[in-house]
């Protein structure tokens, strides 16, 4: 696993971490809060990308995964007083187990149908959280007053940074391994991967579990940062859209791409807020995303690295 990792890579990671950890000294509290949102979005985008960007199985159900993690820990800690040290790991495990149960059959489905099933799951979850046991889920209103883990923007930043950094580093290691190569091969030609003697179902299931674990973890910590949860904000096409667009704008099938995309989108949102306070801003988001995507489906990462090579 470490054969393709050399000290230069590790140095770059260290420089990245050091640079990010200096941020609280350099920027205002408000900006720091924006960065926190960007970091959670980056986690979700990396999670989506590890499944969909790499294997080519487009998931429209990531909010569903994030929602399982978020709701599990929210319900456990708020309704049953389970300490967060316990409720968050349970939430991650539940996301993985729950999503495997739901999606295992879906992994037999190829192409566009996979996307459709995951979309159906998200809508299903949205409707179910409102009607099944609203005493637990809080129904349409959701739950608020959930325990928060950190006080103040600086601590919140450190926590979300550590989460994002660890996620990025682990996913990067995975993608550098032979397994990462095999996952990318699936998106190019799944039959030929099977024809090379590899069990593609196992590979996809692995990618799926990793993706779900990251989504569940991100969702669980996120809800303990926000302190509240509501179905419409979570199981929402706009949220799904933001995750996917973050991954795509930056560059699918890379690690830096989804992170860069998440920061780009979140800051764009922040700057647009005074002019376009409501849902209209998705017009700008979407317009930019569509242009970039039509011009270069591999995103900014590819555009920049092509310019670099030419220069």
């Amino acid at each position: 696993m470490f054969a393709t990792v050399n000290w230069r890579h590790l140095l770059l990671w260290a420089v990245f971490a050091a640079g990010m950890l200096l941020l609280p000294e350099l920027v205002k509290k408000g900006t720091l809060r924006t960065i926190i949102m960007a970091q959670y979005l980056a986690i979700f985008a990396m999670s989506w990308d590890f499944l969909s960007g790499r294997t080519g199985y487009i998931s429209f159900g990531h909010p569903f995964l994030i929602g399982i993690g978020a709701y599990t820990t929210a319900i456990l800690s708020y309704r049953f007083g389970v300490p967060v040290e316990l409720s968050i790991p349970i939430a991650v495990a539940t996301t993985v187990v729950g999503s495997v149960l739901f999606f295992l059959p879906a992994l037999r489905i190829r192409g566009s149908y996979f996307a459709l099933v995951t979309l159906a799951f998200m809508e299903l979850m949205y409707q179910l959280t409102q009607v099944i046991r609203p005493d637990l889920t809080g129904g349409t209103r959701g739950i608020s007053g959930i325990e928060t883990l950190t006080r103040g923007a600086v601590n919140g930043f450190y926590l979300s940074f550590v989460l994002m950094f660890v996620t990025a580093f682990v996913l990067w290691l995975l993608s550098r391994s032979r397994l990462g190569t095999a996952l990318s091969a699936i998106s190019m030609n799944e039959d030929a991967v099977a024809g090379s003697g590899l069990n593609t179902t196992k590979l996809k299931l692995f990618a799926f579990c990793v993706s779900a674990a990251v989504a569940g973890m991100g969702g669980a910590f996120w809800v303990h940062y926000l302190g509240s949860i509501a179905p419409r904000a979570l199981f929402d096409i706009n949220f799904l859209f933001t995750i996917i667009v973050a991954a795509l704008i930056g560059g699918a099938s890379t690690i830096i791409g989804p992170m860069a995309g998440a920061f780009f989108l979140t800051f764009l949102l922040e700057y647009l807020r005074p002019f376009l306070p409501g849902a209209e801003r998705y017009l700008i988001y979407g317009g930019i995303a569509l242009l970039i995507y039509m011009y270069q489906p591999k995103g900014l990462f590819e555009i920049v690295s092509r310019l670099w090579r030419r220069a």
Partner: protein
Amino acid sequence: MTQILIQGFLLSGLYALIAVGFTLIFSVGRVLNLAYGAYLVIGGYAYFWLSQTLGMPKIVGVLLAIVLGAVIGISKYRLIVKPLKGDHVAVEISTLILAVVVQAGIVLLFGDASKILHPIVSGVSRVGGATVTYNILTAAVVSWVILIGLYLFVRFTHLGRALEAVSMDVKGAAISGVDPDQMNQLTWAISGALGALAGVFFASYTQLYPGMWVTPLIIAVAVVIVGGIGSILGTLLVAHIIGFMEVISTSLIAAELRGVFTMLLIIVVLIIRPKGLFGRAEL
């Protein structure tokens, strides 16, 4: 009982109308147009603006909405689908983005709040204890007329046969002198027009709001997956299954659960038959 029967048939007619434009693209263009719901939104709002804001005659509003849908369908094909050369993943993603862009554009133009459409055809009558608005009755009748018309068109006209040929085998059709590109363009235009028309009725049946494209999209998806790609009979049949399931769950179980069964239907069918009930191997 009569209530359920009548309501079921009327709603199913509307759903068939919603689904038929979507299945057309799926079958001829072979791509998943996630922005299909956007036609409904655009159709609904165009009608609202023309006939309720500008005060044009209703029929003019409907016709212009249909024309707009067709134009948007063609542009979508020209600007997005064709350049992506039938890459499924790319089309799925870009049409999803487009759907969100359209939704945001509507918010910008008309605001976030939902609007009430006056019925396109006003009047109510009571049949065996059931209230039947002429509005939804018209939608159901129009839907039947369109489905039958489409069926006859595909079966008995030269153009229709050419369309069908493209849906079966693009290369073969090209060899026998049918221009797949032209056929695709025609399909996108028809699909857009049907979507816009369905949007006018759907909006007048429920409400007009910027996010009103998701539910119809899921209904259309369910109909296509369960009923088979490009099968007009399958479309009709499954639209009725879904329509009746909704009416039954609304009146007998719980109104909030009406959409749940549609989703479950999609999931269960795909899991039992990964290729869809009448599906082709891959999309």
